[in-house]
């Protein structure tokens, strides 16, 4: 197990190296003056572009620039975000909890609904539940995030007025800015509870309902499908028949023998689900005007704010690799063959 994790860990620097090389090479398509824009902090600096190019040595060959860029990265200097008017690293740090709150809440239905409904469908093969789940999963899988978000807004914001876009209502935003509201975790719902403000926590939750549904739909549908088909496969295995023949109760067979094995493909998929969530976060946050990393990256891309977009790209790549590492470890725990293989 240890060498297995170690082997996986070695992938991390490789991917980091590869992604940064790709990014630096892509940046070579820009002129040095465009690259300099990543380090400009205000419009007054516009006439200092030649100095900035010289200072950051942006007209050197790409491999020299790569070395310099990595050096700055190691110092935590990812450039300056014109979109948020602060260093990129500061924005990343500030907005990460906001996005994490949304993504973590979205993972709950993805895992819960996906695995639960998938299991139910497989155990009631061709029954009513199965048919409903299959139709649901096909539609859920086919509604793009941006269509889903807009439609939910039209119905629940435009027509019914139950939910609003954004992260918090204006009145609470003012109270939080002026009163003695303290940020502990950056998770608004948690912080509000820690401050003893149930009303703010509920308001924040209300703002999260639609984005969470939007973000979770596609991934839940995928997990549901895979869970269903892999449990069906597992149920037709010889060891399940043996377990039944031994006279074990159906619950025990389904849970211990079938479902445990059926989870392996689902775990494989969860790496892809994470990638899907990151893609989804960019779109969902943009639709719901939710001030997280995704909304920032999308706005930055429109502003040609290179520093921000590259910072976001590196962040997502590292996240994905780290998550895949976790998936592999989980894999080893569930499936002993991989540990010893």
């Amino acid at each position: 197990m240890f060498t297995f994790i170690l082997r996986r860990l070695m992938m991390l620097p490789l991917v980091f190296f590869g992604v940064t090389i790709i990014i630096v090479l892509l940046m070579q398509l820009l002129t040095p003056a465009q690259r300099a824009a990543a380090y400009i902090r205000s419009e007054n600096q516009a006439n200092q572009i030649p100095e900035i190019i010289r200072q950051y040595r942006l007209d050197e060959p790409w491999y020299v620039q790569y070395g310099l860029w990595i050096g700055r990265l190691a110092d935590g200097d990812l450039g300056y975000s014109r979109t948020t008017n602060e260093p990129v690293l500061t924005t990343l740090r500030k907005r990460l909890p906001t996005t994490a709150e949304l993504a973590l809440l979205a993972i709950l239905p993805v895992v819960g609904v996906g695995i639960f409904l998938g299991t139910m469908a497989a155990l009631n093969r061709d029954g009513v539940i199965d048919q409903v789940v299959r139709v649901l999963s096909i539609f859920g899988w086919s509604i793009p995030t941006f269509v889903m978000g807009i439609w939910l807004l039209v119905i629940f914001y435009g027509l019914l007025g139950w939910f609003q876009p954004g992260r918090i209502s204006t009145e609470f935003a003012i109270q939080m800015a002026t009163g003695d509201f303290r940020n502990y975790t950056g998770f608004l719902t948690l912080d509000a509870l820690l401050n003893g403000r149930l009303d703010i926590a509920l308001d924040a939750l209300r703002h999260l309902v639609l984005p969470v549904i939007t973000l979770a739909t596609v991934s839940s549908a995928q997990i549901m499908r895979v869970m269903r088909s892999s449990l069906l496969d597992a149920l037709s295995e010889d060891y399940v028949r043996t377990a039944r023949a031994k006279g074990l109760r159906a619950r025990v067979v389904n849970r211990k023998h079938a479902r445990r094995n059926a989870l392996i493909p689902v775990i494989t998929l969860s790496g892809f689900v994470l990638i899907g969530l990151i893609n989804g976060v960019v779109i969902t946050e943009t639709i719901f005007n939710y001030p997280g990393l995704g909304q920032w990256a999308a706005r930055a891309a429109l502003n040609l704010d290179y520093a921000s977009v590259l910072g976001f790209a590196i962040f997502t790549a590292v996240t994905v690799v780290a998550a895949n590492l976790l998936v592999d470890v989980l894999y080893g725990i569930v499936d002993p063959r991989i540990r010893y293989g």
Partner: protein
Amino acid sequence: MDAAPAPKFVERKTALGRWWQSKSLRRFRRNPLAIVGLVIVASFVVIATIAPLVTPLGRSCMRDLGLTAATADAHRDVRNAAFWQLMFRTPDSCYMMPRAGFSPIPQSAEASGTLLGTTSQGYDIYYGLMWGARTAFRIGVLVVGIGLTVGILIGATAAYLGGWVDNVLMRFTDVVIAVPALVLALVIVMVLGNSIVNLMIAIAAVAWPSYARLVRGEVLRIKQLEYVTGAQAMGRRSFGIVFRHILPNAIGPVLIVASLDIGSIVLTAAALSFLGLGPELGYTDWGQMISFARNWILGPPGQPLAYWYTSFWPGLTIVMFVLGWNLLGDAFRDVLDVRGHV
């Protein structure tokens, strides 16, 4: 007149007949969802083909076709050069949505005199959706083509040469896969600039790694077969072996998988252009039409659903398109699944 009775059953021996009767195709035909998917995708192919004939062309498009108000319908007649030009050498201006007025507020079908209403700035929704199907297939087919070419070259080289070449190429593939597709495509479009060509380049740049992996697997499998050893023994050069002997046998499954990707590729394109990183403003493209709808979620006081058509029609079109490809892809993966035959 005693002619010999016609044989009741004529066994079809043509390749097409054999294919039609093959086990996998029978499975496909028996799957109702697969048929639904096929019908949906086929409808979109028809829509994309006939879009120029059933939509009211814009002024600049007509000018580029050499049409005037007097000959406005000439492009619907196959005897005219304008018809063929419109079908096969479509001027770029025809891909721009014509505007029924310049109203900043969306107009309903009745108010604007268009079939499905207009978005803000007066863009004709019906025109955008019909021609958007053409754009979608253009993006889908070209991106799959480019991605496949790159994927085949990299995958086949890696598998055939093996050793450190294989290692370097496949680790590079791993790296590209590690970045979420939308994010990488976002970076590329931002650096290259907004246009339909750059959008396609960006998506192809994130699509090739999965094809490369597939091709590599297939080539590795076929490389073991005896006829390849035979070709090697006869002294053929390695690239000759790869391209003449291995690839033609490896390419089938890859081609199917890749063409089924058209749905998800169009979806990525629509998502990027929803974010504002797609073709130029006014291009017939579904993602952009959804992004127009973003500002019209709320109607005027008292009429909450006044602008429903701005988000409903484009949304429905994209959902149907993706649904069709998903159903089709699902059925094909079922048919191709080897385990299912045992």
